[in-house]
């Protein structure tokens, strides 16, 4: 109970830090804190495998990708404006409607009677709810089709990234630069032979 509120406070604080940080690097650090805290929360919800996946995929792959892009674009200071300067004219109605939707959601959540939870089982042993064995058995038997669809999604993403990043150079340009590299190598070899 206390753990939940501590984790919730850390989650909200790091989420706010993510969106108010001046530089994207600070946002990445805040988001890392957010993801790690969320992984701890998943463990308390007895979703062990997803906690591990959270650390490996989010903190290990996605955030490192963000850091890599920030490093590639020079820490993000140059090409982007920083600071909250979007929506200069309509920030008042936009903020009003966002807060109204949020308030309505909180009101609905606090008033709706949720379904009662079934009796809780043992947590943390192999073969029970949320363990790696439980998750893996479901993933490879009953839920095999969604798992294959996941693979399709990843393949589409890879093809999309290659299409976006691969068409920088036309065929003629590529051949030119290849010939230039060949000539440079030949000249270097000749120079070596002379010297």
């Amino acid at each position, binding site marked *: 109970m206390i753990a939940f509120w501590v984790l919730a406070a850390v989650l909200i604080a790091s*989420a706010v830090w993510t*969106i108010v940080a001046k530089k994207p690097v600070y946002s*990445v650090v805040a988001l890392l804190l957010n993801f790690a805290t969320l992984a701890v929360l998943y463990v308390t919800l007895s*979703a062990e*495998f997803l906690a591990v996946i959270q650390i490996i995929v989010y903190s290990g792959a996605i955030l490192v990708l963000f850091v890599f892009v920030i490093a590639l674009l020079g820490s993000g200071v140059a090409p*982007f*404006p920083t600071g909250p300067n*979007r929506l200069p004219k309509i920030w008042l109605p936009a903020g009003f409607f966002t807060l109204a939707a949020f308030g309505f*959601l909180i009101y609905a959540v606090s008033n709706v009677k949720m379904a009662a939870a079934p009796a809780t089982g043992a947590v943390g042993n192999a073969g029970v709810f949320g363990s790696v064995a439980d998750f893996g058995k479901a*993933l490879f038997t009953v839920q095999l089709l969604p798992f294959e669809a996941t693979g399709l999604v990843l393949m589409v993403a890879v093809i999309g990234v290659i299409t976006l990043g691969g068409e920088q150079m036309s065929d003629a340009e590529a051949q030119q630069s290849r010939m230039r590299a060949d000539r440079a190598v030949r000249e270097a070899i000749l120079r070596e032979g002379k010297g």
Partner: protein
Amino acid sequence: MSVPINDYVSLASVIFFIGVIGVIVRRNPLIMLMSVELMFNAANLLLIAYARLWLHNVGHIFAFIVITVAAAEAAIGLAIVVTTFRPEKYVDVDDIRRLHG
């Protein structure tokens, strides 16, 4: 499950709305992508909390798919950012003459 499910829904909606505000307010495309990740995580938290409530692991499978989609979205979004804001047009080091003397 000692914490009532309403608290998880409230926490997830708070995080989701922080992500919404980040996408609306910030102009930096990287921080906007990170705000989208925040929203994905709020949805995941809700899926896992309900999976725990009903002791049914289909919510875990769905959260797994959401994580995969988030990874694909981050890869494509960052590829778009890089192709849009690429500082150097040339990827061939032989073509770079800046340090040529």
